[in-house]
């Protein structure tokens, strides 16, 4: 197998995630797109680790595990914030959350 197979799949998932973050209105859907991005990164970490031999493979796996943990923390806090926005403004439409717009 080529390394590039995995890296290009990671790139595709990353770009789909970027599109989702930019194009979606619903806060929960934006968080889902961020998960796609984090998954793309994880594929890259594991694939690039296994290129370099056993020690780097383990390092890549450990880093991927750390990224999964960070993702869990991010989703927890992110959903709490989305929930708070919903409670205060009764919408999760990110276009309507424009208090910081001049």
């Amino acid at each position, binding site marked *: 197998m080529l*390394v590039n197979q995995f890296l290009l799949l990671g790139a595709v998932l990353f*770009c789909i995630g970027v*599109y989702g973050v*930019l194009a979606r209105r619903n806060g929960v859907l934006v968080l889902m797109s961020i*998960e796609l991005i984090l*998954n793309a990164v994880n594929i890259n970490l594991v694939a690039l680790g296994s290129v370099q031999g056993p020690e780097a493979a383990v390092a890549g*796996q450990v880093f991927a*595990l750390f990224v999964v*943990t960070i993702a869990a923390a991010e989703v927890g806090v992110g959903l709490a914030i989305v929930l708070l926005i919903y409670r205060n403004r009764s919408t999760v439409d990110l276009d309507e959350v424009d208090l910081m717009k001049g």
Partner: protein
Amino acid sequence: MIAQNIAFAILALVATLAALRVVTTRNVVHAALYLVVVLASVGALYVLLAAEFVAAVQILIYIGAIVVLFLFGIMLTRATIGVESDLDNDQRWIAAITGLFLLGVLTFVLVESFGDDQLPGLAGVSREELTAQRGTGAVGDAIFSTYLVPFEVISVLLLAALVGAIVLARRD
């Protein structure tokens, strides 16, 4: 090798199509369910890369915990269960152009720098050797020796995120 390539092709196709549906579907609950398909295929790809512990964690934490959290989020924000027409904003075309441009740049850079580099074949390595080198035991050893400090830091981070989420979400 051929079997691995076929497996990769199927998984990559499923992951890409499901990911496209996550960002284009008009039903919020369907988006969460398509996300399950993406995460499961990525988990299977980890098995292809001989990273079985990461695959297990992917299934347990992502599909088991994070997607359930997303479904709770959808439920609590009372999103319409069913087709919703205005899930995308007006920047959709700019977003598509940005994504495609980024994909072009990344593809160019990756092809340019990695070209035809092969993943080292694991065919000659015995199963015992493989497990000892990069199996679950080796990952556990690495976490609790080389990466002990980051591991502890990440535990504290997770605790802080948990407390933060409760503080943010509770009603006073």
